[in-house]
């Protein structure tokens, strides 16, 4: 018990998982990312908000190099991901990603969707991978859909499967790129519920979302982006009750 308290007290010295230094992404003259600096700590839930076109998705997608930055550093678990000698595929295995449009593989069953990467990349046996998958499927309440194809599922179910697919690789961080934006309103709740329980279990998460309720309830830290820059960062309380910049005030007024 005392040990736990001690570790809680040491919170400011938490282990840094991702460090982003002066990250830039230019498309010709357009600066999609214009000098981003931030750190994501182990076990932290960071929610990134901002008006559309602010670069928040680009920022998230550059963390696992789906977008190739034109400048700066991304240091993930002590390794600079932009170093040419780095095997990016190895590090991507440690970063789960969930997309707005689910991107499940339509030609595979749900079980195969979830287990194909652990089997091929982690070298798990089929039996072990399927056991792991069934456990995760049970957690999101979709154990009975293991043999279905993605086309047979609703949007909310697809997104829960997409989360399970990423989790089955046992990543160190989960990146969520507007995970509920493509869902019908009645299905948003079930996906957010899965994300909340993930946060409770201590998963490190970076989430781009328009769900301010989720940000307020689950986030340890909220980042506000506009014009490719981080304008403000703070706890949900600070951000939602007393935003400092005009742009953040304007944005929050329009979405809350």
């Amino acid at each position: 018990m005392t040990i736990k308290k001690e570790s809680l007290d040491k919170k400011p010295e938490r282990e840094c998982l991702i460090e982003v230094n002066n990250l830039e992404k230019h498309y010709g003259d357009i600066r999609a990312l214009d000098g981003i600096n931030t750190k994501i700590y182990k076990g932290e839930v960071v929610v990134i908000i901002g008006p559309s076109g602010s670069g928040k998705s680009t920022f998230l997608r550059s963390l696992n190099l789906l977008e190739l930055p034109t400048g700066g550093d991304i240091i993930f678990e002590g390794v600079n991901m932009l170093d040419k000698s780095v095997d990016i595929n190895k590090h991507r295995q440690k970063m789960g990603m969930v997309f707005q449009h689910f991107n499940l593989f339509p030609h595979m069953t749900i079980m195969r969707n979830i287990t194909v990467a652990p089997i091929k990349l982690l070298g798990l046996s089929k039996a072990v991978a399927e056991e792991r998958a069934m456990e995760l499927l049970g957690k999101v309440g979709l154990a009975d859909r293991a043999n279905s194809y993605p086309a047979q599922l609703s949007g909310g179910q697809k997104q829960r499967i997409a989360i399970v697919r990423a989790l089955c690789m046992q990543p160190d961080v989960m990146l969520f790129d507007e995970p509920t934006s493509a869902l019908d309103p009645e299905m948003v709740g079930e996906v957010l519920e899965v994300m909340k329980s993930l946060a409770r279990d201590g998963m490190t998460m970076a989430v781009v979302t328009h769900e301010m309720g989720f940000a307020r309830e689950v986030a340890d830290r909220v980042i506000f982006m506009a014009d490719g820059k981080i304008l403000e960062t703070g706890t949900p309380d600070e951000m939602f009750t007393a935003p400092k910049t005009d742009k953040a005030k304007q944005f929050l007024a329009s979405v809350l």
Partner: protein
Amino acid sequence: MNLAMINGFDEWFSKFKERFINDFITDNRWKYLWNGLGVTMKITLGALVLGILLGFLVAAVRSTHDKTGKLKILNAICRVYLTVIRGTPVVVQLMITYFVILAPLGVNEIIVAICAFGINSGAYVAEIVRAGIMSIDNGQFEAGRSLGFNYPQTMYLIILPQAFKNILPALCNEFIVLLKETSVAGYVALQDLTKGGDIIRGRTFDAFLPLIAVALIYLVIVMILTKLVSMLERRLRNSDH
């Protein structure tokens, strides 16, 4: 009146029978068609395999270039290949392959034909496959890469199986075209199905029956092929409900 009709039919039928026997039975002339069919199938199947291999290879290079901007030199070579092959008639390609390149080396005619038709078909297959790859949503590609698959794994496990299903009708069409295009193999002294019919015509001076027989055989093969492909399509479709 009725009697006349029956008599007329009788006469026509016995004439037909005579021609049929003369065209196909006498001197075992049906063997020209049978052996010709064998040659046609050998060329078609050989060219099919070669064409698919070449086509997928070229499509892989081209779409890698389209997606990542890498492989500039290989892509340029592939584009020259596509331009030349699609810009010249297959008969000319066949004759160049035979008379200019391979005959001086004494290569077997069937191998020559397989090479010529395979290289020709590869160009069309390549563009079909490339279109199939480009038709798959980029999100599929990103999902594969984000899990940690490298580029070839993503292609092989995620993109190509989906692309293959989409392009199956176009590929089937290409195979039908290929089968029928081999009918010009006679230009390089090969006795394929068409040439077989033509030889019979030369022996019997009857053009009608041998050519109709040749046409029917092509038709039957195409119908069988179409049937097989539609069965395959149905099997592949079990994931979209």
